[in-house]
């Protein structure tokens, strides 16, 4: 089988964790299909990332020296098109990131590759590649195959594959960037809003509050509880809409997906489709609601029909 090419990403000198997760996906496929895994890094100083990319299972790291320090979609699209034409990989994996959105679909169209975005499952059914992604606002999972495509490009959802921790000893090669006519210039780098140092997508334990908390002052009470439990505080849309918690704490379709969460304590959240889109994958959902038929109970591992303030009081006393 043709090789699997993983396109790594870096920003401001830091390798994106999603790059290593893509490598993990490739290594997992290699274990069943035997393909070689090739990682490619495009940067002004690509050598500095080689050690990080040299994990067990990677057979080769390709370095591409870029004329630009920051990401440019034209540079990525044209360089990768040339690289793919030369290497003819069967599968190209790129992180499902803001950078990939800027070049991956265009690249797939230009090369007439098979394409799927935000993929969280990849397997071979015989020789046929099958990718899994969500559809209809995460309501269903869809399996996609790519009949007649020799090369398939997938953008891979973050926090799905666990990074490979063991180091490896891949071959290092260089690829010369082709002459590229840029259509845009990098002017400045704007640091995104910090979110108060909180990134709920990385939180392992979440305590999330919804409409059931009634008043703004009660938010403080639950924030205090979350702190004493060492859980990260999140919320459903109405709480953020009221301005009671910042948007970066909002879980759901117009908020964030709590991709790293293993325990999600939903207090006073009825479970709208929009909210559940951001947390229904969590393995341990504990829901507390006074309505025994609240939708949240349909996805909860543990359900408590009770007043959230009573439960909060017991938790406060337990964790204090």
């Amino acid at each position, binding site marked *: 089988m043709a090789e699997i090419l993983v396109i790594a990403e870096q920003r401001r000198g830091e390798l994106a964790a999603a790059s290593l997760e893509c490598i993990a996906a490739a290594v997992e496929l290699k274990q069943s299909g035997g393909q070689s895994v090739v990682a490619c890094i495009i940067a002004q100083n690509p050598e500095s990332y080689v050690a990080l990319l040299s994990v067990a299972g990677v057979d080769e790291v390709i370095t591409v020296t870029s004329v630009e320090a920051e990401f440019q979609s034209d540079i990525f699209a044209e360089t990768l098109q040339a690289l793919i034409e030369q290497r003819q990989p069967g599968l190209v994996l790129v992180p499902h990131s803001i950078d990939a959105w800027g070049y991956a679909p265009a690249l797939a169209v230009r090369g007439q590759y098979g394409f799927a975005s935000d993929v969280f499952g990849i397997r071979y059914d015989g020789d046929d590649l099958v990718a899994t992604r969500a559809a209809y606002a995460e309501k269903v999972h869809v399996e996609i195959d790519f009949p007649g495509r020799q090369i398939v490009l997938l953008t891979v959802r973050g926090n799905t594959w666990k990074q490979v921790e063991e180091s490896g000893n891949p071959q290092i090669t260089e690829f010369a960037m082709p002459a590229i006519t840029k259509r845009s210039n990098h002017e400045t780098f704007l640091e995104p809003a910090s979110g108060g140092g909180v990134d709920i997508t990385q939180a392992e334990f979440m305590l999330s509050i919804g409409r059931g908390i009634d008043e703004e002052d009660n938010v403080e009470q639950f924030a205090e509880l979350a702190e004493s439990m060492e859980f990260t505080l999140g919320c459903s849309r109405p709480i953020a809409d009221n*301005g009671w918690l910042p*948007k970066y704490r909002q879980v759901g379709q117009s908020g964030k997906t709590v991709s790293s969460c293993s325990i999600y304590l939903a207090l006073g959240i009825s479970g709208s489709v*929009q909210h559940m889109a951001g947390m229904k994958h969590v393995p341990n959902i504990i829901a507390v609601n006074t*309505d*025994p038929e609240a939708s949240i109970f349909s996805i909860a591992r543990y359900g408590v029909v009770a007043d959230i303030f009573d439960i909060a009081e017991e938790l406060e006393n337990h964790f204090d």
Partner: protein
Amino acid sequence: MTVASENGFSQLAERILASGDAYQAAALHPWLPMSERLVFEQIIFSHRRYPRLFAQASFSPVSLIERLVQESDGLILDKLAKNSATPTAVLRQLAEHSQNQSRFLSIAKHANADSVLLASLDAHDSAALHEAICNNPNTGLAQLSLLLATASSGERKAMARNPQANSGLLLALWQSSDDVYLQAEIAAHSECPPELLALAISNDQVLLRRKAAANPGLSKVQLAQLLGDCEAQVRTAALRHLGAKNIQLINEPARRVRRELARKTGLDKQLIESLSIDEDNWVRRWVARNPVTPEAILRVLAKDGEVEVRRGVARNALLPENLCRELATDPDSWVRAGIAIRPDLGVDTIRQLSCHDSIDVLAGLGRNPLTPVKLLMQIARHSDRDVRRAVILNPQTPLSILQILLEDPYPLNRAQLCRHAAVGSTQLLQLLEDPEPQVRFSAVQALAELSQSPE
């Protein structure tokens, strides 16, 4: 087409019939005369998934629920029994014409099941059903008393929590078991007999004393005893349920109690001062929010190193205008966002806030009825859907701006738009063509309401 007329309503009905859209037909159902409903029901029942969907949906009109209960499809009836919008009469019909245990259980848990209906379910002998009946706050005292003789441990605790339980039942429950969790529920109940309450507050078990501290029937002497309890959680519970006046707990060692104290509105100046310099930032957060905190202390807290303390000041209901202006320039956007949602903003403060690009600040301004139209127009064009929705949630947003949002790419925003008072029949008719069912449903509801209002 003007909807606010009989003619307009007929045109709307005809249009919905022509569309064959089940969502629009369901939204119009309660507004139709009985004689005209049948033809719309043919659309709703055109595919079996629609009646099942509406049987489950809490947004379904009661008239449609009353129609759906006539169906024989067990799945529809099960969903109706679980639907929070199902009225008492329909629940009664479901109970009368069913032998389905799981449906009885859903009815027993239902908030709209009344005491008569719950009593009728009692004949079906099932432990889960009995527990649900004991838990339902509508279950009558007589039925609870009847269930006592055979009640399990879980059912007894549910009875002890039930607001319908009286002192006699609570006494019988106490005497039936020495389970401390059961006794704790009894001690917290507002109908707890005084002799049991006295036993609870002197008990060795912290749980019992803490639960008793939440009882509204405590005398001043008992409350004072619990406020001096050796356990912080008991003192906290007593404080939480203490009235606003005569609070004198200086030098409280437990930070939990001090946090609770800082929320109370009956604090004297000396106590507020001491709490305002507490080492625990949660105590200072609560003082910052407390409406009785004097301006001089708020001024100090407005410069606190902790963002959330300054945010607390920004959310203080009685924040003086000069401090409000000062916090509008706070370096942290979360503090500024706290100012942006205030109902007492001056024009200058709004202008100051609008210079920043934080989505929390802009969403706050977008929702604030005091925000000038020109600024609302800018916010309505923001790239973030939540920020744009804030403008839709603002009751003062004029139609000229809402018009822009008619084609908002986020369906929820368009659905919210249908509920805005400034949106008229022209816009709502446009939304009838929306690809999202919830938008079309909301648009029909709003149009039907308009048709009933005076022109």
